[in-house]
């Protein structure tokens, strides 16, 4: 049963992504509102994949990626960045610090479901 951690400060986007992720058979979705909340959730339940926004209060998505990659227990968890920042340099920056994929908003939910399934299969 894959555990999917959705890290997003916008309730609308969080609900939309979670809604799409629940369509992956047997998946369990955990929601977090920012990077700190995500780390808290991770310590109690290890996720199989993380979907994170970049612009969030308290701790942004990029900081979360670097902290996850620096942790021996979580460093292999695939991370997909979902953001309004569509510029190539933003994508490169996120990929350089360890994101596995980068999707600019507005998202195509089917594309996201396919990508998550692909990352989970690879794992």
């Amino acid at each position, binding site marked *: 049963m894959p555990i999917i951690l959705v890290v997003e400060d916008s309730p*609308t*986007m969080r609900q939309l992504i979670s809604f799409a992720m629940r369509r992956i058979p047997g998946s369990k979705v955990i929601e977090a509102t920012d990077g700190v909340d995500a780390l808290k959730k991770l310590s109690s339940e290890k996720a199989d994949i993380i979907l994170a926004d970049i612009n969030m209060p308290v701790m942004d998505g990029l900081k979360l990626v670097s902290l996850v990659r620096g942790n021996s227990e979580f460093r292999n968890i695939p991370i997909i960045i979902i953001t309004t920042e*569509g*510029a190539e340099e933003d994508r490169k920056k996120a990929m350089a610090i360890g994101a596995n994929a980068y999707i600019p*908003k507005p998202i*195509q939910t089917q594309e996201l479901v396919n990508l998550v399934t692909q990352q989970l299969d690879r794992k």
Partner: protein
Amino acid sequence: MDKEPGILKKADEFLQIFKKGEEFTRNLLKENERLRFRIAELEEAHTQDFNTAKTKHYEDHIRMLKDEIEALQERFRRVETENRDFSQKYVIVEEENNNLANMYVASYQLHSTLDYEEVLKIVLEIIINLIGAKKFSVMLIDKKLEELEPIASEGIDMDNGAGISIGRGVIEKVVMEGESYFSDDPVHTESEDPAKPIVCIPLKIKEHVIGVIAIYSFLNQKTGFTNVDYELFNLLAGHAATAIFSSRLYARSKREFTTIQNFLELMKVKSTQ
């Protein structure tokens, strides 16, 4: 000597019989040869008949198998076409599902609260995250001033957008006709004039326009409008208007209720003195 002719005669008779026997045997052998030949002929004919029958049987069988293959190929073609149709339908249904999910989430969020500030935040979230707008303004009609009062915006200084006169171009048309406006310019065009948005959506309660959402630019990654964008614009036109209006009304009535309550408290205190 008398006996000699008798012996000779008998010998002659014997010779005659022997010759006849020889003749008979030769005929017998000939007949035997002919019959053997005939048997061989008949056997060959029989074999040929059998082979012909067998060949015919095989040919029939081959024909039957060919028909069967053709029928199977036809069935395969039909199933393949059906499969293609199903997969196309599946893609359409999936797209519809995703669109409906977007609609569901957007309308669910819009009506999840009566807090005016929260409603505005949700409207902004929908416009940014689900539609992909970069610069936009949500404005309500101020009938006294005959202006559009910006109540929320993104990427625009609120002061710059303040007090857009209704009687100016695109926005006026949208307010008057209650129909959404989509510019013919490419989606990447950025409008600097507050009165000339790229997209303008009326906020309507039934047929009554209470304001507009004016979009001046979209995120760079937005390449064009999809079906779900138009659905979201429609949804915002109706649901955002109701949500904003009702939350505003609720906030006002709450304020008034508190004022009345405080007034009554004051009256009570005064009457006891």
